[in-house]
């Protein structure tokens, strides 16, 4: 196995992929949005509880590969307690890391574990599905986020 692949499938990612945190529907959610990757059929539904411009809780449900599930899982943990302004910036930082291959911003914290996906152009969309769904929601777009 080469080092890029090892970086992609490190233990934390495989673990979050198989046992995603904050997985399930959230009855008290103030915002619900869906994301879809037509290339592979990955589907995601994101539930957010937003109070006073702050994400109190993030949950999701859906099906997908280890990368997309782990990314959604790690994102849901990281969003807890973040303001909407901070969240928007996190989206930019995450995007810059995996799409533009920039060195990760310090605010990404544990999310930097997904940096390895940048070496796999065909898999970047798996990692960004949850983030695109979140982005649509923040931009007030009431439509399914499609990665294609």
């Amino acid at each position, binding site marked *: 196995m080469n080092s890029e692949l090892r970086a992609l*499938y490190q233990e934390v990612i495989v673990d979050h992929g198989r046992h995603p945190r904050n997985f399930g529907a959230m009855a008290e959610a103030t915002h619900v949005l869906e994301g879809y990757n037509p290339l592979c*059929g*990955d589907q995601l539904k994101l539930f957010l509880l937003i109070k006073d411009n702050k994400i109190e809780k993030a949950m999701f449900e859906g099906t997908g590969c280890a990368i997309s599930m782990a990314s959604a899982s790690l994102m849901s943990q990281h969003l807890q307690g973040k303001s909407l302004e901070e969240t928007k910036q996190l989206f930019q930082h995450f995007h810059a890391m995996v799409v533009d291959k920039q060195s990760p911003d310090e605010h990404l914290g544990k999310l930097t574990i997904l940096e390895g996906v940048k070496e796999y152009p065909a*898999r970047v969309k798996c990692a960004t599905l949850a983030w695109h769904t979140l982005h649509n929601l923040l931009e007030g777009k009431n439509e399914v986020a499609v990665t294609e």
Partner: protein
Amino acid sequence: MAFTLQEIAEIRLNFPILQTQARGNPLVYLDNAATTQKPRQCIEATSRYYEMENANVHRGVHYLSEISTQKYEDARKIIADFIHAPSSSNIVFTRGTTEAINLVAHGFSRTILKPGDEIIISAMEHHSNIVPWQLACQYSGASLKVINLLEDTSLDLEHFKTLLSEKTKLVAVTYISNTLGNINPVEEIIRLSKEKNIPTLIDAAQATAHKPINVQMLACDFLVFSGHKMFGPTGIGALYGTSEWLNKLPPYQGGGDMITKVSYETSEYQKAPLKFEAGTPNIAGTLAWVESIKYLSTLDLNRIQQYEHDLLNYATEKLNTIPNIQIIGTATDKASIISFIHKNAHPHDIATILDDEGIAIRAGHHCTMPLMNYLKLNTTARASFCFYNTFEEIDLFINALKTVDRIFS
């Protein structure tokens, strides 16, 4: 008899891409159902055409134009002979299988289909044999009926019989499923349809490279196929149609080459097949495709079929020894295509891990989303073999699946 190791080694040398590496490993290409690799003859024909023969067809009186027109029309004859069509006029060149189906669907929606009419397809069709019919139904008010599958994913012929009625205007089914590998009993489907005077269209995209085809023996009304799935270039394919149907259907696209006379008010069309071929065709692609067909013919499709069957059995047996893996589609009559899922690993993760070792497989819905829903799956991983693959490559593939097992233990 199947091929010897020596013969396979020689065949492989004839495909330049098989000598290359992927991610530092020798390429193991197991995505033949998506597209096949090209033999040297096909690649050389493309350069030869542009270096020595390039001219438009059916137009000029000059030297090069005569050569390209002659070669282009010879190609039509070679393709007709390959599927045992009565005449080259039964062959319409298209961009591929998809365009060929769209051509027929367009014609049906404009001249044949009326509100209340029905078209029958099967549950395992590729999007290209679903969406054109949905469009035809939208335009005409006809509706689509779908043949169910049995437990082993083979076609439920009893259900098919119940769908056939006076409302049925066409039966369009795939010869070989690109996702499951099933070889469908098209002879029986055609026979049952013919009893009720219903025309049939056979999607042979996955079939032409793997088994001999005789359209007159099949007695189908249409058969569609693509160059790139049978070792030819992309962007070229063909529609076979009986003379009766090709004469009956209206033109698909309008333009140069498909007319005999044009005025501002009206136009007169060429006879089939030229009636359906507007604009400058893919001449280079056609000539290169024909070289692939000639090459394929030297290998003997019966021997190819036998060798690929051996590859299929070997791979099936090996996959069945990995406890976490389940093969999707267990019909008895299969071509060398295997869809599978892993208990813990998603097909996309499997494909990425195999790719790391230079092994190319497909992961996804394989352009058969309705089939995936029917089988209550989202995606599968798919390995598809052809005659240039080896038993050794299957061993590498199986070995790489053990890495998947290790990562997702």
